[in-house]
């Protein structure tokens, strides 16, 4: 069964580019554009990896809420933060919330693919 990946970002173009790239790699990919949509998907679908921005639909740090949701619900998904924010404090807070990788936008797709591949390899 293909590993499932969830991309959470309010930028539709970015979601589509990442989705197409990861789907070509053989992954099943869902996308969400806002916090509650992501939480609903996470409630019903077991994802191997979640890729999230920190800023979601006007929620400055909605991505942190996604990470907290994953940890509070004891979901097994590994988390990659993909964000334009690079503040050390924020990175530290995201890390403390239990993320597995942190990528700065604009990241290369190959970097994203490598991070996903590494995390899925570590999980399976």
């Amino acid at each position, binding site marked *: 069964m293909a590993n499932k990946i969830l991309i959470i970002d309010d930028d539709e173009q970015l979601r589509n580019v990442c989705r197409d790239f990861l789907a070509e790699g053989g992954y099943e990919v*869902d996308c*969400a*554009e*806002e916090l*509650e*949509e992501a*939480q*609903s*998907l996470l*409630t*019903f679908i077991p994802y191997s990896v979640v890729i999230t921005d920190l800023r979601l639909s006007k929620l400055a740090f909605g991505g942190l809420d996604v990470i907290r949701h994953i940890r509070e619900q004891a979901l097994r998904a590994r988390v990659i933060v993909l964000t334009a924010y690079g503040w050390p404090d924020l990175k530290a807070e995201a890390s403390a919330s239990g993320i597995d990788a942190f990528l700065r936008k604009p990241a290369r797709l190959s970097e994203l693919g490598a991070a996903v591949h590494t995390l899925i390899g570590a999980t399976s």
Partner: protein
Amino acid sequence: MTKSLLETILDPSKLSVLFQPIFEVQNGIKRLDSLEALIRGPQGTNFNRADILFDYVRRKKAEVAVDHTCFMAVCDEVMRLPAEVRVNVNVHAATLGQSCGFVEFFRRCAKKRSLKLERFTIEIVEHAPSCDASQLTTTILQLRELGIRIALDDVGLGQSNYRMMLDCDPEYFKLDGYFVRNLNRDPKRRAVVASLVALSESLESAVVAEAVGSQEDLSQVAELGVNLVQANILCPAMPLAELQKLGYVDATPDFDAMPGSDAAFGKMQNFDRRDMRFAAAAGQSFYT
């Protein structure tokens, strides 16, 4: 301007309605009792799955708005059904438990399509920990006065508890599939179902067994005195046209000749939206 996700869901034309039959099963012979209308969100979105759609709606606290929208979509489909077919519609307790004009909306929505209110059963679904019980009881009384029946959904799970049985005084208990799964192999599950059947008899309600998964379990629920069954093994949820092809309901008489199906239909939907805005002004904001 791009529509928000919630606005996309709140467009009745983007929703699709499936129907699943509820059968009365006696001595192995099944007869159509009613149809449960089941909503699916917009095609090509995550909300095409009902569980994700309604989980999202509850997270956005948009139950009132979505219940109104879903009822409009259901009514549009019910117009295509023969007049004698009864229809179950899901409504959140959170909607019935507040003064948001739902009863009036329901009445007008059905009337505009020449649908008899007595055909409808409202299935009360509840996932929130509590709602205004006094308002809920008042709303249910108003619905009953219109001839609408009440069913309590997911009995035995979550918030569909003893208090809700008393507050809603339903005609039907819809027993969640969790309790009838592997009933034939689990005496404890049988004990739970038997107790709910006894309770329903005392409360003068009927039990509907949902999601019966096998012929063995079907026999068991019958032995326990449950003869109303909704199950994929009997007939899964499907679009009305497919139900008609399978012969569960008669083909539509002549939809184009029915009241409300002409060019005025678009205007009618506009009126409904105006009703919704009115309800929103009276109660909950539609866009949270």
